[in-house]
């Protein structure tokens, strides 16, 4: 079709606990590999640290005061305005749009229908085992099963014999295979481009994951939050009492006082271990998804985001529900599709035979390096206009101050120029490596690029230095 496909990966409650963001405890080789070929936005923020409002916000590119959604009890089209969504915009411009897992927040927020029929060309997929989300399946110290926060499991013993994100990944890779076969069968060239959104449920609580992933994080190596005390001068209104944790059986048994706690150190360590293990499990599934996309559809824009952050004991807090940096800052990575045109090999060693087997940890913990970091401020409302521009669709207009009657507009800005500039550098460097050219000729060809980079002090200096002529 001449237009790129788009893969949007959304991870629930993911703070930037990733190797490519410099987290030395995290083990996320597959997301790190994605980052090494893309732009990593190191200061990206959600508009509200709660799933429903945040997702509605970035999927419409409007802030909560415009969507009028601050909780999970209303549907924006009825409550605020008939705003066009990101997938809807692609659908209306010739794309086939599909979703798997948690993309829109479920329930009333998306009209009990994932915003059908507006947003999707086919019925979104939801993993059947998500129905067992609240089941008591977590092995407690007493040998019986509970509804705990900390919940490493044996997958084959789970209701349905699987876990939601494993099912979502299997569905997604099968969907991609089927789409590729359809392309092959088509006599008039490739069929429509696709916009495929895949939403992972973990590391949202309960921290339920294949128990093998605990091996990556021996409990005595998991540190406590360095600032695990209530900050001096914090106004009480800013405090989040993390009720979502308190209602679980393991936390309730600790008799943590309301509303400030604190969580006992020994259990804080387990929660942190569970969060990192759950993220490594999710990362392994993302590896399968990306390997399939790269094999079948290299002309795909890949965007990776978390819907908001999560406190891991910092300030004596847990969960989201606040304006703290740890609750609002998110991972935000975009890999553009031009690399396919440049015939750059992606070297994705991430296809896994069994999606719930942890990879072997590196002997030395060191953070992976991203392709190019951009440390300027960006927001999740920027995602929609950025993907639209990168795909070459008609650019979005800025919203007026009152946009309730404007169906299509953005309260963000397009980051496409940043992504495109970075992508050129990534491709050029990959080409140099591929063809074994010396750094001198590489440097000479980058004088112009260096001029662009030096104008923008937000670019990572390491990358900038690497691009300087010798």
């Amino acid at each position, binding site marked *: 079709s001449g237009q790129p496909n788009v893969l949007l990966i959304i991870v629930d409650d993911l703070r930037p606990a990733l190797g490519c963001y410099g987290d030395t405890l995290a083990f996320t080789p597959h997301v790190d590999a994605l980052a090494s070929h893309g732009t990593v936005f190191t200061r990206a923020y959600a508009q509200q640290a709660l799933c429903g409002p945040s997702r509605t916000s970035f999927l419409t590119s409007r802030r909560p005061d415009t969507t009028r959604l*601050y*909780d999970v009890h209303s549907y924006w089209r009825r409550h605020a305005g008939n705003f066009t969504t990101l997938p809807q915009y692609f659908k209306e411009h010739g794309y086939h749009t599909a979703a798997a897992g948690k993309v829109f927040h479920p329930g009333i927020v998306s009209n009990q229908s994932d915003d059908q029929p507006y947003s999707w060309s086919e019925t979104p997929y939801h993993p059947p085992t998500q129905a067992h989300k609240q089941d008591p399946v977590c092995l407690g110290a007493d040998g019986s099963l509970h509804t705990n926060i900390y919940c490493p499991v044996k997958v084959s013993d789970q209701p349905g014999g699987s876990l939601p994100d494993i099912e979502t990944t299997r569905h997604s890779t099968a969907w991609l295979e089927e789409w590729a076969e359809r392309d092959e069968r088509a006599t008039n060239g490739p069929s429509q481009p696709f916009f495929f959104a895949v939403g992972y449920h973990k590391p949202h609580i309960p921290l339920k994951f294949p128990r093998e992933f605990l091996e990556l994080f021996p409990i005595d190596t998991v540190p406590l939050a360095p600032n695990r005390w209530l900050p001096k001068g914090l*106004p009480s209104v800013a405090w*989040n009492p993390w009720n*979502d944790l308190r209602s679980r059986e393991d936390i309730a048994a600790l008799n943590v006082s309301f509303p400030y706690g604190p969580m006992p150190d020994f259990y804080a360590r387990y929660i942190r271990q569970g969060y990192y293990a759950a993220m490594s499990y999710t990362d392994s599934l993302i590896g399968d998804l990306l390997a399939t996309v790269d094999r079948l559809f290299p002309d795909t824009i890949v965007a990776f985001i978390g819907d908001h952050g999560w406190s891991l004991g910092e300030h004596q807090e847990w969960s989201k529900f606040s*304006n703290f*940096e740890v609750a609002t800052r998110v991972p935000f990575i975009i890999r553009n599709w031009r690399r396919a045109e440049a015939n750059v090999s992606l070297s994705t060693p991430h296809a896994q035979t069994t999606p719930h087997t942890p990879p072997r940890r590196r002997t030395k913990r060191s953070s992976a390096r991203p392709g190019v970091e951009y440390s300027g401020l960006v927001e999740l409302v920027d995602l929609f206009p950025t993907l639209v521009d990168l795909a070459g669709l008609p650019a979005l207009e800025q919203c007026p101050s009152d946009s309730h009657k404007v169906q299509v507009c953005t309260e963000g*800005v397009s980051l496409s*120029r940043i992504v495109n500039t970075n992508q050129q550098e990534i491709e050029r460097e990959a080409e140099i490596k591929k063809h074994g050219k010396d750094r001198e000729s590489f440097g000479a060809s980058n004088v112009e690029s260096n001029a662009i980079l030096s104008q923008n002090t937000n670019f990572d200096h390491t990358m900038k230095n690497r691009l300087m002529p010798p």
Partner: protein
Amino acid sequence: KERNRNIKTKTAAFSQYPRPGPIPSKNPDSDQPHTSDTTIMGYSVRTDRFRFTAWLRFDNITYRPDWDHIVAEELYDHKIDPSEDRNLVGKGSYARKRKALF
């Protein structure tokens, strides 16, 4: 449209969070209040160096804050306190910065 395309970076990023009241022990649903129970909204602005949050009285019928009624404020200087452990809003040396961010 042209302006949107030409913006290279932002000078600020914004987020917000609702509360049913000022004291969590008196408002057990402080973490996830229903909009109809929301009486306060915390508006945050982040710049390269600071995070300032104004907790304002909020009208849950008109969905508008009352900028004349400040419930509480927070100011963190990420240059000296990246993990946001010291609320500096009462410090005289930051008064001008607080005013600018407000």
